[in-house]
């Protein structure tokens, strides 16, 4: 596509010091509190975290889909292909959303209208964004259903969402999201509700479409297995902060943050023998409305020291691409390198 002409040397999305807060009865919840990252064109970035880490709010912020009130982007910059997303009037944002940025969710039923045939829903997108007439839109909808691998696409166009299985519904949603050939696709837990054989199909589909269309992808998930095979870079979020940021291989091989290390170790490895006790991170994911002073992870951390209870940790640079939010990032990193060498 000729229209894809970008000026800022390959960066499609840049988020700087984003803060999205919610007013609740419990006080202000800092769901996302000062996070920054960049996404290069054609790159897949994984955002990993547990419930309440802020990973979904980050991406709803990028799409400007935060319900306001109670939520609000209180500060920060979101730049999408040289456009300042936060400064855009809502009607202009609406023209970008669905056309140049698209999103797929965990549960397709929440984003498909149960009362409309899927042909109507697919056609609506290109009629609105690409100015298709009915005939063009219909042809395009059919092409998209075929692209995402829905068998017997012609007949399926007239079906309603409930007539599709979970995996097929997810395909319909991907077809809709990719209808206008977006530059950025945000996939929020796209396979969490699916069975593993269907998950494999959908992940393969996203990979394949990405390589054919050159789409940049943000993949949000709690499953470290999913990000391992799909992404080039990873952000680990905890309590609204970026705890670690690194190229995928480096993050898995030599994590520099105790939380990342704990997460990686607590996943059962099929190659290991049965019955060995799993490494476990003690305690519970944090209540973002009631964070202690100092490091938000202090109560669950295996190497907590006094300073962690007093001072908020620095975002330590390990190398140009690898950063970790920890008072002892360098030590944890050195530890990981030793452990790797010992293997």
């Amino acid at each position, binding site marked *: 596509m000729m229209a894809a002409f970008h000026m800022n040397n390959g960066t499609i999305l840049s988020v700087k010091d984003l803060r999205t807060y919610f007013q609740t009865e419990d006080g202000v919840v800092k769901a996302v509190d000062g996070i920054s990252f960049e996404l290069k064109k054609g790159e897949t970035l994984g955002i990993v975290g*547990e*419930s309440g880490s802020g990973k979904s709010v980050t991406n709803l912020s990028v799409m400007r889909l935060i319900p306001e009130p109670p939520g609000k982007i209180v500060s920060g910059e979101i730049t999408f292909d040289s456009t300042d997303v936060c400064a855009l009037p809502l009607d202009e944002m609406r023209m970008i959303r669905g056309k140049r940025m698209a999103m797929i969710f965990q549960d397709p039923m929440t984003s498909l209208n149960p009362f409309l045939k899927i042909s109507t829903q697919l056609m609506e997108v290109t009629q609105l964004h690409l100015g298709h007439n009915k005939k063009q839109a219909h042809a395009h909808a059919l092409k998209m259903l075929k692209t995402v691998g829905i*068998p017997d696409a012609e007949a399926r166009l007239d079906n309603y969402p409930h007539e599709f*299985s*979970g*995996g*097929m519904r997810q395909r319909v949603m991907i077809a809709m999201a990719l209808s206008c050939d977006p530059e950025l696709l945000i996939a929020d837990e796209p396979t969490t509700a699916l*069975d*593993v*054989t*269907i*998950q*494999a*199909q959908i*992940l*393969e589909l996203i990979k394949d479409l990405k390589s054919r269309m050159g789409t940049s992808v943000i993949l949000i998930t*709690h*499953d*470290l*297995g*999913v990000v*391992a*095979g799909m992404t080039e870079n990873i952000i680990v979020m905890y309590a609204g902060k970026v705890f670690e940021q690194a190229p*995928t*291989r480096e993050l*898995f*091989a030599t994590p520099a943050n105790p939380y990342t290390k*704990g*997460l*990686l170790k*607590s*996943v*059962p*490895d*099929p190659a*290991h*023998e*049965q*019955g060995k*006790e*799993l*490494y*476990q*991170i*003690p305690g*519970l*994911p944090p209540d973002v409305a009631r964070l202690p002073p100092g490091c938000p992870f202090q109560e*669950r951390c295996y190497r907590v020291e006094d300073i962690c209870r007093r001072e908020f940790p620095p975002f330590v640079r390990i190398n140009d691409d690898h950063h970790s939010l920890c008072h002892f990032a360098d030590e944890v990193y050195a530890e990981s390198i030793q452990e790797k060498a010992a293997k």
Partner: protein
Amino acid sequence: MSETNGNTLISLQDLKVHYRLGGGLFTEAKIVKAVDGVSFDILRGETLGLVGESGCGKSTLGKSILRLTEPTGGKVLYHGNDLAVLSQSAMRDHRKNLQMIFQDPYASLNPRMTVGNIIGEPIRTFGLANGGSVDTKVQDLMETVGLSRRFIKRYPHEFSGGQRQRIGIARALAVDPEFIVADEPISALDVSIQAQIMNLMERLQAQKNLTYLFISHDLRAVRHLSDRVAVMYLGKIVELAGGRETYADPLMPYTIALISAVPVPDPEIEATRERIILTGDVPSPINPPFGCPFHTRCGYAIEECKQIVPSLVEIKPRHLAACIRINAEHPQIEANAAAGMGAIGEGKGISEAL
């Protein structure tokens, strides 16, 4: 199959749960074969993992063992009794020994009862303690599962998901059972909490000599917890072997694909490994395909697979699989297919199966 030896705690023999669906004056009722002739033994003190995709019948199977769903055929042998045909009152005597942990700790706890009453109810019902000693027993149980004794007066909504699952486990343990069906006990929990609950289940098993049927779609968790693993597809067990064998050396094509589909949390491995992508969805159990239930998605299916129902037979020592393209002499389907071998395994033809 029924090698009921001294070590067997529960023996399932040709267990069936069929539902009738619809059916009126002019329309024929459809039969859903949720569980369709399942036979295996659960050994004392083991964890038997039961894996399969949604709709394969694994939860129905778990519930039918405890008679939370009525079996429509077959036997559940337990201490010399067939649980499947016991009267409700006779079954009640066994409930003390047979407990269940549910997937959704939000839905399975009464929101209007305090934790003390939730865990205490089975203790009172079975008369295991009375008066003030109930609370003491409840608090001991809370401590056992890692909850503070102080929380006894709290309500379920005051707890996190992981803590609620601990309450569910404490309730199951309250009557000192010997067998627990755990139906997706970690699926609704955060990653860091899943490890905590799995460790807790293992610790309790060792302490109390519990036997688990661990039902899950999470193959990594099943591999970690289970001594043996049964793989279920469309109401039937298609492979049954030791945990290590199931993962290192799966024999039945569905198991091979299922294990290959699990993402490995290691970018180095993911970058190079070949994944088998199954086409299509699981067929509906309302109209299951005849022959091998998996033939509609199987890359190795031949004409005979549509006509012969494969039997679950021992292919390697203590490693059972249901596939007509393998047998004890030729256990590897890929090699058999490459060599052009056809139907070499055991199965039942149309006339025998009907």
